[in-house]
């Protein structure tokens, strides 16, 4: 079972139009994958750990969003029918859910990975798989085994006008309008701030960073918090965009996001964004021109092909510039 793509509305009357439409959908989906992929890539960049639990943090984030939407309507009398209330509500979700996911991610790091900091690399990796299972079962207990409907709060009206050849809905716009600023903000944060500098220093040479008086554990904690917050934002957007959440979505989307991170060069922030977009495009173009059932195969064939010719990923370099 793969996350559904919104390709039903594509008008196939003209060749280039169809192509552009698929590309637009692909880029929108890709932006979402990129947001999750950033969490994988940042953590890998700093401690060379593939945090398999990341996808499940994302899943729990969307469950929390779902619960909050229900609770706000029930206990606060929030009116989810009114556009202003929807905007404010989504804004609120985009604060609360990332905070929750960041706290969860930091807790996982403190409890599970930190005691293993000096252990061989395999130990935290296997622990990460274990945490992933634990979180998945927490999701199962919380949300049940069946797919759950996520309220369709954002309108599907086209922003380009009903008569335009291409369809780009308010929903698509929401995805782009939230993900792109987040990615820009993240890049600026890592580039310009003191903490970002400490992150880059730790990624390049943890020992030298420690000798500069940088508290490496705190920097690693901050990285987990940032990655978790991105996953939380992605979880809210995913729920609002795809409208179906299930306890398995962390694994499925995590796999795609991880692939995106590897494709772009794991440990590399622009690489994760590029990888996410490539995978989004491959999936939508693949389902449009090859067939829905071949999309996964297509994505992984692309991954293999790129890794054969560029083992470090699209933007990965041989030097250790990770974050």
């Amino acid at each position, binding site marked *: 079972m793969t996350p559904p793509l919104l390709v039903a509305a594509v008008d196939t009357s003209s060749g280039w139009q169809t192509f552009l439409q698929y590309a637009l959908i692909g880029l929108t989906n890709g932006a979402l994958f990129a947001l999750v992929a950033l969490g994988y890539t940042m953590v890998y960049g700093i401690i060379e750990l593939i945090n398999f639990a990341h996808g499940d943090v994302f899943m729990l984030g969307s469950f929390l969003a779902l619960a909050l939407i229900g609770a706000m309507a029930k206990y606060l009398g929030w009116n989810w029918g009114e556009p202003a209330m929807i905007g404010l509500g989504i804004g609120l979700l985009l604060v609360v859910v990332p905070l929750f996911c960041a706290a969860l991610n930091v807790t996982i790091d403190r409890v599970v990975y*930190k*005691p293993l900091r000096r252990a061989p690399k395999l130990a935290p990796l296997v622990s990460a798989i274990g945490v992933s299972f634990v979180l998945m079962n927490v999701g199962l207990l919380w949300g049940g085994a069946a797919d759950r409907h996520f309220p369709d709060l954002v309108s599907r009206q086209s922003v380009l006008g009903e008569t335009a050849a291409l369809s780009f809905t308010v929903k698509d716009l929401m995805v782009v309008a939230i993900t792109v600023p987040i990615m820009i903000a993240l890049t600026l*944060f890592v580039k*310009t*701030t*003191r*903490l970002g*500098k*400490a992150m*880059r*220093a730790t990624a*390049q*040479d943890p*020992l*030298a*960073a*420690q*000798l*500069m*008086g*940088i*508290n*490496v554990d705190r920097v690693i904690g*901050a990285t987990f918090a940032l990655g978790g917050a991105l996953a939380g934002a992605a979880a809210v957007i995913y729920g609002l965009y795809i409208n179906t959440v299930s306890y398995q979505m962390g694994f499925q989307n995590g796999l795609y996001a991880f692939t995106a991170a590897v494709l772009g060069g794991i440990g590399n922030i622009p690489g994760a964004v590029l990888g996410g977009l490539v995978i989004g495009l491959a999936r939508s173009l693949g389902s449009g021109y090859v067939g829905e059932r071949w999309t996964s195969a297509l994505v992984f064939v692309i991954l293999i092909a790129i890794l054969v010719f560029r083992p470090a990923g699209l933007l990965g370099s041989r*030097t*250790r*510039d990770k974050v």
Partner: protein
Amino acid sequence: MTLLKLNKLIVRFGGLTAVEDVDCVVRERQIFSIIGPNGAGKTTVFNAITGIYEPSGGTIEFRGQPLRRRLSWQVLVLCVVVGLITGFGAALVSVDVNALWRAAIKRNYARPGEPFSYAAAGHDAWNYMQGTLALDRMRGNRWAVRTPDGRRTLGYAKSHDEAEQMRSRFEKLIDAAGSTTAPVERDGKWVVRDRDDTENLASFEAEADARAVLDKYATLARDPAARRRSALVALLLGIVVGSAGTWAVWSRARRTPEVISRAGIARTFQNIRLFQNMTVLENVLTGMDRGLRGGVIRMALQLPGIRQQERAARERARRLLGFVGLAGKERMLAKNLPYGDQRRLEIARALATEPQLILLDEPAAGMNPAESIELNRLIGQIRDQGLSVLLIEHHMKVVMGISDRIAVLDYGAKIAEGTPEEVRKNPKVIAAYLGSEEVS
């Protein structure tokens, strides 16, 4: 005044002894050199001082204090909190998980006409831990009285009230069976009395029947007590293991390089370890960060206070770069600098942490004579600013020219120490180090 004191320092790797019983005293405003042939253990001494290796024996004192992270109350609180969490986790696991699952979750799902609720499950779980008999609603408003885990049915009742009565009678029976009550004979019948001997609970024709009933309930009576006991043991064990483990993890990381850097020791490396993909200025700025204040939010928003701090830090970084002779190269990436400049940048980065003692590991390696004279001057200037320098060096010109004191290592042991003149004349040194070099 004594700044750094190594007292019988030993570093072993497995069976191999890299440094053996080395004593050293570095005073303030002193240039102290460690020389010796390759593999003598000089860099190992540096690594032991800067917390990269844990010394196998001996002590390292800096200004009379051991170089360790201070114990703070937060650590103790963390130990207690983690201990409690582990304890409760262990207590939870120590109970029969299958039985608890059946008592709290499964029975709740099977209940006719009622949706599953977490409140009910929590209530049932609590009852199970208490050892209270369970009441289950059956179809047709019948009620069953069951063992706490819901596995065995003790009796059925036609209404809730009747079921409650039945439960209280069973509980008294179990209580009686758990105590040392024996059946008594009353009016030709064998009667089981409750624990306080106030009430008849059941009566039988034969004594054997009464005893059999008591025996049957005796097993149930033992159950909750044993369960509580094992949970308590697990709780205590969990608290001990959890807090001891947290303490162990923390105390193993007391001598990290970060702590040593904050105490006032900085170092450079023999094989240059700059942040290669950062600019020259950024490299120096990372060394200053620990002196700056401000949380993540204020950093992200770039509030005026933060900006001012960072402007001041940049200003200071530029001065440092000028001091080592790298003015005007601030924007270059560290990896694009020539070799000699990279060494100087590493010194500037180390100075940025405002140390009292700076450890230089072969700073003149790969430098031409002109550059090493320049370096000599730089090291002298560093000392003149009030810092002490601990130096590893092969260039005899550098060492003899600037050192106040020299220690000579050979095969991990110190064979000589003194002023340059004394060391130069020491026959042991000539044999072990200078002599062998002259022959080759």
